[in-house]
């Protein structure tokens, strides 16, 4: 099977970012940082048309989980592309963009926009959590 994520690596080059690969038998994976924040890209070998770009953040200590879910829901209603979800066992919040593509080449010209919307979603999520405290 061809390397689904080569085009994403090229998009990261376009953005002037470093990235590392961590592939295994199940998936192709890229990790990278932008302005110090960590992101990942995953494509599964058995589902070559699926690509996911995301970032994970720790929830602050003492956050009311139900309130955090409300904030995530509000973002899910409003934001294009991004799915915001709480990973309760880890006390993390995940922001992901899930795409169905014929080839990751299709993602390359839009990669900057997707990265911006991921970044903005995380900023808005934590701003909304703080505002409502």
């Amino acid at each position, binding site marked *: 099977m061809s390397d689904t994520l080569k085009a994403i690596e090229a998009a990261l080059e376009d953005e*002037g*970012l470093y990235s590392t690969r961590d592939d295994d038998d199940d998936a192709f994976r890229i990790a*990278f940082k*932008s302005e*110090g924040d960590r992101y990942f890209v995953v494509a599964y070998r058995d589902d070559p048309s699926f690509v996911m770009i995301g970032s994970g953040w720790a929830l602050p200590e003492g956050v009311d989980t139900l309130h955090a879910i409300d904030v995530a829901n509000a973002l899910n209603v409003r934001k294009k592309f991004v799915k915001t979800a709480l990973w309760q066992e880890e006390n993390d919040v995940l922001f992901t963009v899930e795409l169905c593509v014929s080839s990751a080449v299709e993602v390359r010209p839009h990669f900057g926009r997707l990265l911006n919307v991921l970044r903005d979603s995380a900023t808005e999520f934590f701003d909304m959590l703080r505002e409502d405290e």
Partner: protein
Amino acid sequence: MLSVRETVARFIQGEGHKVDATPIDPDSGTSELLFRTRGQVFSVTTNEKDTGSLSISTAYEIPEWARDEHANTEARAEHPRVTFTLAHDGSLFVATTDEEADSTEELIRQFWILVARVRDAGAQAIEDIVDRTESQAAAEKFINSFMMGDR
């Protein structure tokens, strides 16, 4: 001990970004570091003789019809810590912030805030320039047509 240029370059690289660092004037210790973020190239100027200061700039190409250096007065008023200049015969609009601190480490701690400051101010100034030029052009077109009796 690392130079200021190397300290700042390593920080930006550590944050995930490729950096092109070039000494500009070895006598004065001035260097320029270029990196990209959010689709925009930023330039950082460091000076080995002044370890507590740096400048961050970004440039925008502006079309000939929008080259009016007085069109960004609102952005100037709203972002007093950012200076705006025209370069390359007015084809480039440059937004710059100069920051002073007690040390390079202190500058680094607020690095992305400074980048955001320049980005926000520059984007607003460009928007003002284009808006004003477009609305002015539209108004002139309308007035000219009206005066000529087309409408």
